[in-house]
């Protein structure tokens, strides 16, 4: 199928109706054959992907409804070898008539009205999960939902691949004051482990970036892990903005297009996207023609123009994956006015700090807040960074040690995979940590948190797990992490000093008694007990009044005016 589409787009052979070609293939069918595009590659990753889809949907729904989320995620290993996943939330629920679309139709555009910075943009939606369950086990997905209006609605759902239509079964509506959504799906070809790619890690990180959520995770062994809510503050509802042509991926474009009520692709662009004028439509068309001719030197200019003209006249609902891919490519070659910046929604320093304390119970946390910056000449983004040190920060290693860990997020969504090629990882690894008194990043209880915020996250691939290594992004992440690292350095330094200070105090105090006995005898006046109390007070005062800096710099001058360094400062290093 892919080959035939390519054939059409490349303009090889005769030119024919592109939209007609698409109709012959269901989008569901397409994804079924290209499931790695949805993040279903590898047994561990596939399981994390399905958890991700349901959890982000729950968080988004709660946020929009102003509800503090309570989400329970349970995994059960079935005797058949399959894995059963149950996710239940306390969100607003899905109205009965939308259940089919939300769960049983690919690119159904349930997010069509949410052109905003949302977690769900990162996924393929709940329907992708239904699809995955169906192709690995053949089984439908159970759901139960309610709007809190006294009625509950449950049933099972499958997808008709041929027609990309939901198939609802065993539906039942009954009286129960239920609000929220519960889904239960069974999967084959998945595996649970406790690695850094596991659903457990995913949920831990989700809790980290969503301090307002309470999440309970029950793993296949039955162990129940609670990530308690750290803040009662529901995040501000994101501002709706039209998507910017530079900020979307193929999948987004398809979803928007298929959900659109516009008659033509050209008007769909103008009315859906920000900064997309009719002038830009013409530029896009011209660039698309150029691109088609570049890709196929044997193609006639007039044929290419005809194909593009037809495409733009056709309904957006008929846009294919390949066409969307080409359009996205062409968008990047055009000059656009920058998108608005006010849509950026950071988590906020105090929320991040609460979350870091909640999850890592660290000795010390530093959070940095920075102003929005732009990349690719105009796309606004913002970086939030935080570092936690000590406590449960870092990752427990098999040998009992702890290793420094980078927690990457894009708009609060954890990025677990493809760390190697990610701008966030590159920036953190590029730092000379020793300059910040972190002597060996790989062996320190340190957690580096980075949230990349943008309405348009420049992912490196369809898996949406790594952020493109653009110079401006790496630099900004670097600066944000450095800022936090400086805070950690001050802390670590202070810690060393505090220890030094205590040691100094103790070192002096042990001589107080002897001196208090000798001095009054020597003077022939004075009282030992009284002198002892006085001297102890003097020592206490000195080492509590001293600021950390002063204690560190405690340098005494002798008669020569030569500086004599305090011996214990050096002795510390022995």
């Amino acid at each position, binding site marked *: 199928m892919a080959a035939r589409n390519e054939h059409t787009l490349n303009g090889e052979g005769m030119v024919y109706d592109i939209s007609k070609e698409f109709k012959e293939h269901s989008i569901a069918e397409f994804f079924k054959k290209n499931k790695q595009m949805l993040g279903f590659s590898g047994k561990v990753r596939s399981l994390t992907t399905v958890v991700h889809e349901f959890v982000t949907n729950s968080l988004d729904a709660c946020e929009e409804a102003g509800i503090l989320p309570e989400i329970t995620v349970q995994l059960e290993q079935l005797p058949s070898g399959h894995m059963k996943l149950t996710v239940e939330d306390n969100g607003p629920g899905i109205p009965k008539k939308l259940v089919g679309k939300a769960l049983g139709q690919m690119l159904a555009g349930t997010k069509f009205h949410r052109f905003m910075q949302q977690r769900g943009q990162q996924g393929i939606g709940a329907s992708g999960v239904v699809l995955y369950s169906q192709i690995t086990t053949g089984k439908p997905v159970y759901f139960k939902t309610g709007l809190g209006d006294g009625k509950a609605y449950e049933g099972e759902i499958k997808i008709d691949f041929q027609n990309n239509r939901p198939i609802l079964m065993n539906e039942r509506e009954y009286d129960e004051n239920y609000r929220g959504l519960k889904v239960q799906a069974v999967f084959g070809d998945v595996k649970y482990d406790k690695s850094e790619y596991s659903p457990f890690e995913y949920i831990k990180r989700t809790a980290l970036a969503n301090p307002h959520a309470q999440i309970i995770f029950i793993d296949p062994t039955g162990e129940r892990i609670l990530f308690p809510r750290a803040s009662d503050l529901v995040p501000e509802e994101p501002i709706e903005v039209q998507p910017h042509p530079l900020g979307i991926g193929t999948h987004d474009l398809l979803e928007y297009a298929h959900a659109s009520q516009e008659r033509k692709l050209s008007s769909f662009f103008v009315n859906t996207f920000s900064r997309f004028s009719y002038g830009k439509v013409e530029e896009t068309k011209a660039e698309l023609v150029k691109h088609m001719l570049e890709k196929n030197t044997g193609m006639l200019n007039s044929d290419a123009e005809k194909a593009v003209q037809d495409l733009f006249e056709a309904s957006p609902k008929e846009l294919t994956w390949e066409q969307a891919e080409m359009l996205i490519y062409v968008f990047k070659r055009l000059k656009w006015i920058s998108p608005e910046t006010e849509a950026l929604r950071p988590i906020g320093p105090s929320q991040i700090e609460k979350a870091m304390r909640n999850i890592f119970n660290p000795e010390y946390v530093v959070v940095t807040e920075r102003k929005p910056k732009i990349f690719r000449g105009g796309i606004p983004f913002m970086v939030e960074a935080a570092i936690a040190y000590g406590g449960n920060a870092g990752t427990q290693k098999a040998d009992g040690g702890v290793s420094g860990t980078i927690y990457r997020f894009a708009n609060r969504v954890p990025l677990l995979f493809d760390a190697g090629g990610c701008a966030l990882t590159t920036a953190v690894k590029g730092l000379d940590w020793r300059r910040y008194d972190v002597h060996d990043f790989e062996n320190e209880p340190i957690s580096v948190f980075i949230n990349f915020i943008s309405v348009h996250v420049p992912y490196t691939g369809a898996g949406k797990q790594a952020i493109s290594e653009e110079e401006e992004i790496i630099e900004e992440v670097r600066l944000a992490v450095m800022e936090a690292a400086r805070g950690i350095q001050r802390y670590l330094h202070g810690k060393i000093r505090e220890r030094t200070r205590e*040691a*100094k105090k103790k*070192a*002096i105090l*042990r*001589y107080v*008694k*002897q*001196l208090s006995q*000798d*001095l*009054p*005898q*020597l*003077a*022939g*006046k*004075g009282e030992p007990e009284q*002198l002892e109390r*006085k*001297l102890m007070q*003097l*020592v206490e*005062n*000195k080492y509590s009044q001293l600021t950390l800096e002063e204690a560190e710099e*405690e340098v*005494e*001058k*002798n*008669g*020569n005016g030569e500086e*004599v*360094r*305090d*011996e*214990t400062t050096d002795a510390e290093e022995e």
Partner: protein
Amino acid sequence: MAEKKPAITKLEELGLKMIQQVERNESPTFETVLRSKGNVIYDEAIGCLRLGESKEQRTFVNVAQAKKFMQTIAVANKCKKFLEEDAHTSIRGLFYQLKFSLGEEFDEELFSEQEESNPLIEDLEVALKLKREDLNLNTDRKGVVAGNLVLLDKFGGEKTEIDCAKQGRSGWMIPSDVDNGMDFVSIDADWVLVVEKDALWQRLNEDKFWKKENCILITPKGQASRGCRRLIRKLANMKLPIIVFTDNDAWGWYIYWAIKTGSMNLAYLANDIATPEAKFIGMTMQDLNDYDFLNKLTIKAKDVDIKRAEEMLSYEWINRHKEWVRELKTVIQTKKKIEQDALQGPRLSFVGEYLREKMQKKKFLP
């Protein structure tokens, strides 16, 4: 006890000042003059080595100085006790009195090595402008005297008159402290001869040299002890010329210069212990010209002698004397040295003849 010893008063003042500091919420502080080599200067006006102006402060509420401070006070307090009890001990005895644990909870002693307590004694000497002998701390006795000198020793509450003219073959051994409880009763001598070696002293004693020449005959038996130097200083105070007679080699010169200008180590005692008026009678390289037989009795100067000679040439208090520059350069050139004992070569009593002749001709080096 009748009057309070001045040393006790000084120690009490030191302690009182510190207690007052504590009452003012200040860290008690001990101040003394720095005794390092960098702070030793040659004072032309008084003709000896003394300490410069650099001060050293030791304060209790400072981690680097707390222990030393406490130890200093412990030493001071212990010395006060000795003074009160009228008991004397050596610096080693003091160390053992203060070698005890600071408490069960600490694995630490007040002092664990004598090297720790020794410098603190010197600190106190400098800070209080006292000698250790004033603190009832003895040093080893060394040095012997014979001559018309009568002293009164009020040791142990008893008064003993000592006549150095009636000490037979052995002479009177110079004690560690010649100041406290020790007075000159009478001196009937014209000058003082300090002879480096005990063997030569015995020679001259046997020859009744001190009787014939009416001098006081002293041997420090090598390097002069504190007590011996102090006695020489006190005799010089009585306007007796001090004449020093040593080998012509590194060791001998050093003995002379320590008596005359004091030493680096004891620079803090300065003119209490130095005798800038002292003159050097021999042996000298010039003697080789004046006494031909000595040419056969020289020995080869060792490397240490040559090095010492070169070093002495660099000292401003030595190289300001052209006679010494000439002497030292000759030693370096000829690589020869002469011992006092060589004067017994022709006949045993020649030593006395040699000294008599040089005294008459005033053949001295400054």
